[in-house]
């Protein structure tokens, strides 16, 4: 009943489609990111995305067309920084993300002034997606999904044991970069709906939940994907029924799911 009512609003259908795709992408990439101890990259990139969106709005250009390349470049930079330089990975991420946040806020206050825009960027807005945006997002997330599936054996090898993978001739640098770039694209696509401050939860919660219960890589990947999509749908339904902001509602459902998985894991594995 309520679902049918929801689906009669085109903007809600758009949000649902894009949200499900982004949840799928982020949960798959999240498994690798969490296990490689790169969880904070998603968070850092979303702040860079915030800055890029603010600048794009100020100059009145298509927000995604600016944010996607900027965030992809920062992902590459972050990876390089954390691997080669004297600044450690986590410090590099903190530096870049707070810097980008500051630039974004300055640009916004100089142009439109601190208004609801800022809050929309920070915590997301379901109204932010135009039809063109939705189409663009769908194409990009399909590409992310396809690449993840096509390179699945290599992504597993690079995540599990990078030294072995490199020794047996896998170009691990390329695949680390691939993971970072796909993450960047996913973060930008999801952040306008989920908000810059909340998007990283889509990357972190589903894999962690899945790992409470599942013990093989494939089952974790599948469980994480299903959990993520289910939580997104449930979160959106809650947000509609209870008139809550969508991003926070989705995160809250993810938190509940994590609790349930942790309990189930404890019962199953007896720890």
């Amino acid at each position: 009943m309520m679902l049918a009512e929801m689906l009669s609003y085109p903007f809600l259908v758009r949000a649902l489609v894009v949200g499900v795709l982004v949840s799928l992408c982020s949960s798959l990439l999240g498994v690798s990111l969490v296990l490689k101890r790169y969880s904070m990259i998603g968070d850092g990139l979303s702040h860079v995305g915030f800055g890029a969106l603010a600048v794009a709005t100020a100059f009145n250009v298509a927000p995604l067309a600016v944010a996607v390349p900027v965030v992809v470049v920062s992902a590459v930079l972050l990876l390089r920084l954390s691997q080669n330089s004297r600044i450690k990975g986590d410090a590099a991420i903190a530096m870049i993300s707070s810097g980008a946040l500051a630039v974004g806020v300055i640009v916004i206050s100089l142009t439109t002034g601190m208004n609801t825009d800022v809050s929309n960027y920070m915590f997301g807005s379901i109204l932010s997606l135009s039809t063109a945006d939705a189409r663009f997002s769908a194409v990009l997330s399909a590409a992310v999904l396809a690449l993840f599936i096509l390179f699945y054996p290599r992504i597993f090898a690079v995540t599990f044991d990078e030294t072995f993978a490199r020794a047996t001739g896998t170009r691990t640098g390329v695949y680390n970069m691939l993971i970072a770039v796909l993450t960047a694209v996913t973060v930008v696509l999801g952040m306008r709906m989920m908000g810059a401050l909340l998007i990283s939860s889509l990357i972190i919660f589903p894999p962690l939940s899945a790992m409470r219960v599942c013990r093989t890589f494939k089952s974790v990947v599948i469980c994480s994907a299903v959990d993520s999509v289910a939580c997104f749908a449930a979160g959106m339904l809650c947000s509609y029924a209870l008139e809550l902001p969508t991003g926070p509602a989705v995160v809250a459902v993810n938190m509940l799911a994590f609790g349930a998985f942790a309990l189930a894991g404890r019962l199953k594995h007896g720890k």
Partner: protein
Amino acid sequence: MAILECRDATFAYDGEDVLENVDFTLNAGDYLCVVGENGSGKSTLIKGLLGLKAPRSGKIVMGEGLRSTEIGYLPQQTQLQKDFPASVREVVLSGRLNSLGRGLFYTRADRAAAAANMERMGIDDLAGRCYQELSGGQQQRVLLARAMCATKKLLLLDEPVTGLDPVAQNEMYNLIKLINLCDGITVIMVSHDIHEAVRYATHILHLGNRQLFFGTSAEYKQSDLARRFLGGNRT
């Protein structure tokens, strides 16, 4: 015929030589133990052989059509996360990555090879289990099966028995010797345990930031170097 030749290779980090003038030749079927104290350059040599680090001078030459990406490598036990979810089958299968070439997914032949190697290591009944829930000895056998998936000619083992209990250590040594003898696979093993090294290996390479000794185990036992390292109980 030589499967591996190190020709006066020197390795350096930040312009400082850490391992100088390593010069030895291995023939197919040899079993080489690399010994030496911590920081003597053993890990550096391993990286060199795997093609992960280029020598500053000198050369490493592979023979018999061996490529550095076709070495079955068993890394030193690293601090893999305690909760990494991966089944034994997934880990072993990942050893076949270098035979994928441009292919994207594992073929039936890859799965068959993984299954055969799991059976040989006696871990086929663990195939569906989580790698992290196994005992130390079982984990090492899983990694050995993965290494076997990656090679037909040369195994490179970095301290494969460190941290195992004596029974598991013996099992591991016997498995490695069996692979060496039955399959004719050349073995290079880095080891702390000089007594066991002399017992199982055909050749010994002793490092101390340069090459202190290379020769057969029998020759090594007669050397002054070995006398000092093996201690009182000379055999």
